[in-house]
């Protein structure tokens, strides 16, 4: 193990390490802690210049105000309406593309795979004008459907890379054995491969959920107004309205960040497994 395990070194170093851990963490999360604390301060504290001290009392009312005086609840609802169909759509499509590209040898197999991989890395701006145009022509501009359709298509690139490599690592004998038994190709997909893909499906679902929830660029390009905009774009316009009301900006930020954070802590193992794919040989 590298570095040397801490219980094999001198007691002094061990104690220093255990002290350094929380200090480092607090420094690392300092901006976030500041915002969390600000979100609980009554407006009067900020007016008096109490920016760093403890709140004079815990003003949970900031959170109530955010919900009462802004359409943030609707923004959050819109985020769900974009994110959940995208997760289902992109994972479903990539289960199929990943299966096809991992199991079958056919001409252009690698080419198709590399198009998915390369497309996943292109800058969004090269897609912006045509995708906005396409969405307008389909009558889906400023709808959550239009936004979700684009996300499904784009995320299929990353998900295909992930799924294909995952299926490629499954033992090929399973599929050969099923073929000898006369199982059809569609049944092999449904009954043999798909049940083994559960960990990959879980990992991709949490990752795509986080990516799409946090998307800001496409939300501003394809939607406008509080009836359709997801919470990232909504927060940006609320920030404009709440000039210098940092207790509201902070509370709103924390509310907007919460769903992916909860998702991360609930599904941590899958999340990290998905993110670090390829980081080890």
């Amino acid at each position, binding site marked *: 193990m*590298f*570095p040397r*395990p*801490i219980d094999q070194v001198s007691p002094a170093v061990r104690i220093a390490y255990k002290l350094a*851990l929380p200090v480092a963490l607090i420094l*690392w*999360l300092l901006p*976030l802690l500041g915002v969390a604390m*600000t979100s609980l301060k009554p407006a009067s504290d900020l007016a008096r210049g109490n920016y*760093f001290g403890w709140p004079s009392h815990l003003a949970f009312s900031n959170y109530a105000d955010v919900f009462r005086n802004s359409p943030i609840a609707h923004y959050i609802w819109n985020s769900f309406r974009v994110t959940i169909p995208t997760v289902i759509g992109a994972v479903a*499509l990539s289960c*199929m*593309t990943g*299966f*096809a*590209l991992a199991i079958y040898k056919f001409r252009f*197999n690698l080419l198709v795979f*590399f*198009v998915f991989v390369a*497309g996943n*890395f*292109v*800058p*969004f*701006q*090269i*897609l*912006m*004008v045509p*995708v906005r*145009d396409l969405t307008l022509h389909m009558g889906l501009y400023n709808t959550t459907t239009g936004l979700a*359709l684009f996300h*499904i*298509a*784009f995320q*299929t*690139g990353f998900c295909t890379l992930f799924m294909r490599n995952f299926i490629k690592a499954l033992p090929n004998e399973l599929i050969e054995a099923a073929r000898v038994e006369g199982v*059809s*190709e*569609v049944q092999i997909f449904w009954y043999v491969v798909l049940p083994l893909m559960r960990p990959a499906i879980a990992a991709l679902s949490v990752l795509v959920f986080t990516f799409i929830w*946090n998307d*800001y*660029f496409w939300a*501003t*390009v394809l939607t406008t107004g509080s009836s359709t905009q997801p919470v*990232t774009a909504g*927060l*940006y316009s609320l920030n404009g309205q709440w000039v210098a009301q*940092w207790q509201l900006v*902070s509370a709103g930020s924390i509310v*907007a*960040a919460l769903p*992916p954070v909860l998702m*991360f*802590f609930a599904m*941590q193992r899958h999340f990290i497994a998905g*993110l*670090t794919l390829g*980081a*080890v040989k």
Partner: protein
Amino acid sequence: MSAPTASRSGYWRRNQRALAPLLFVAPGALMFTVYVVLPIFRSMSISFYDWDGMGVKKWIGLANYAELWSDPAFVVSLENNVIWLVLYMLAVPAGLFIAIFLNQNTRGIRIYKSLFFFPFVISQVVVGLIFSWFYAPGFGLFFKLTQLFDPAGIALLADERYATYGIIAAGLWPQIAYCMILYLTGLNNVAPDQVEAARLDGAKGWRMLWYVILPQLRPATFIAVVVTVIGALRSFDLVSIMTQGGPYGSTRVLSYYMYEEALSEYGYRMGYGAAIAVVLFAIMMVFISGFIWKMYRDETER
């Protein structure tokens, strides 16, 4: 009625090994073609036109590209992209450093690892707001710190000289977390016997890291570099949230400038915007090709 069905299913049965891949790949490939592959080529063609997004397109050849070279805003954006790219790379060693710091088995270390990773899970919009508050002139924590050196304090995001660096620092926060998690996974898979053998040979500290550990971390380093380059060139959210390209356009990057030209109150110059996007795409393609080339080598080796 049953005869054609039977023959069709017979055809299917005989050819399913050839047909199944097409069937499975088609829906995903269709979506990806319509929304990703074709738009790339459409953007390229739009970049040769003068177009406001609604009216008639007017062919102007390379005029948009010619204009780029004499456009000071474009040059500033390009320079800023280079600064982003270079400074963003700090995320890789910084992530490695934190990963080494956290790669222990003490009690509660798991929760430390998750909390260090935390910034990556938060949306960049929220990261941008958090750092705007951190830098805020008058009361921001960072502003207070600068007052120790300069009584007037430094309003980071309002100062042309520093604003871009302030945004990059905000971007590094989640990016370091990402690199850290890649390296933690990598360190977890370092062969223990090699480390022990090297230790018996007297290797430790930097020499151990350089000659024994880093070579084994190469896959993690590769992915970390790739995601950091892509992240640097994709930077849009933070610029939009924290400065909107200001003050005086000093924090623009290509991705933001393109958006400004094509789709904002500054005008709907879709053709010119597309030309900026093509330049950004060309820069990105250099890195993407490298990545694909390495994947191709790995695939054909197997």
